[in-house]
């Protein structure tokens, strides 16, 4: 599996940058010629991961968020979303559907959506140091390319 593209974006945890982040990743993912549905899934997963950095990792301040998108020649994309915020004390608990520390502004479905919309989800975190979310998705080959 060879890497065919690798793009990195960095921005501050302003909520106005959520649409930027998912659009930028979608631009790169588009190079794999995904269907609209596949593209929508990837945008949604990125939106969840980036929103988590803005809402949970840096609740009271502005912090740096890094998003990396890598494309591979088996037609897959890997998206990494990283913050240097408060971290997650119990990752298994955090990944439980409907679990949220965000009150009724949040649904607790972020990780569940990332999991069901991507093929693979990895979460690494250290309290007080930050969180890294790595997601992979294979784009199905199309019979007739446009």
């Amino acid at each position: 599996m060879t890497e065919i593209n690798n793009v990195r974006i960095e921005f501050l945890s302003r909520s106005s940058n959520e649409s930027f982040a998912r659009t930028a990743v979608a631009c790169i993912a588009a190079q794999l010629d995904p269907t609209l549905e596949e593209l929508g899934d990837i945008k949604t997963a990125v939106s969840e991961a980036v929103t988590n950095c803005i809402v949970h990792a840096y609740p009271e301040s502005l912090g740096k968020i890094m998003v990396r998108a890598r494309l591979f020649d088996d037609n897959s994309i890997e998206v990494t979303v990283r913050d240097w915020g408060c971290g997650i004390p119990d990752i298994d608990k955090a990944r439980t559907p409907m679990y949220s520390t965000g009150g009724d502004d949040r649904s607790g479905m972020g990780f569940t959506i990332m999991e069901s919309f991507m093929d693979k989800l990895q979460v690494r975190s250290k309290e007080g140091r930050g969180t890294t979310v790595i997601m992979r998705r294979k784009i199905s080959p199309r019979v007739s390319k446009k």
Partner: protein
Amino acid sequence: MTLGASYEGGILRVFLSGELDHHAAKKTVDFIEKKIDAHLPREMVLDMKDLSFMDSSGIAVILKSYRRMKEVGGVMQVENVNKQPLRVLLASNVERVVKIIAETKEA
């Protein structure tokens, strides 16, 4: 995110257009709650015909609206849901609580 609303015969219809993410959620909730409080409708319809994107922040918006409608003794449902928002609604199992009427048009 652009918001609109109409009220007729006890039914409040709220139109969502654009992208509903965490950035747009607060404004959307404020708008909906203000409309509910003004009309005290017996039914609210969230019309998502022009909503091109929604993430789980939209689920929280729906659940908040649902609770407010319950408080004023009314019901609510979601209508004209495009493909991407529909996938988010289904993944969240929100149809256990709120009735979802998907549109069948292609995105």
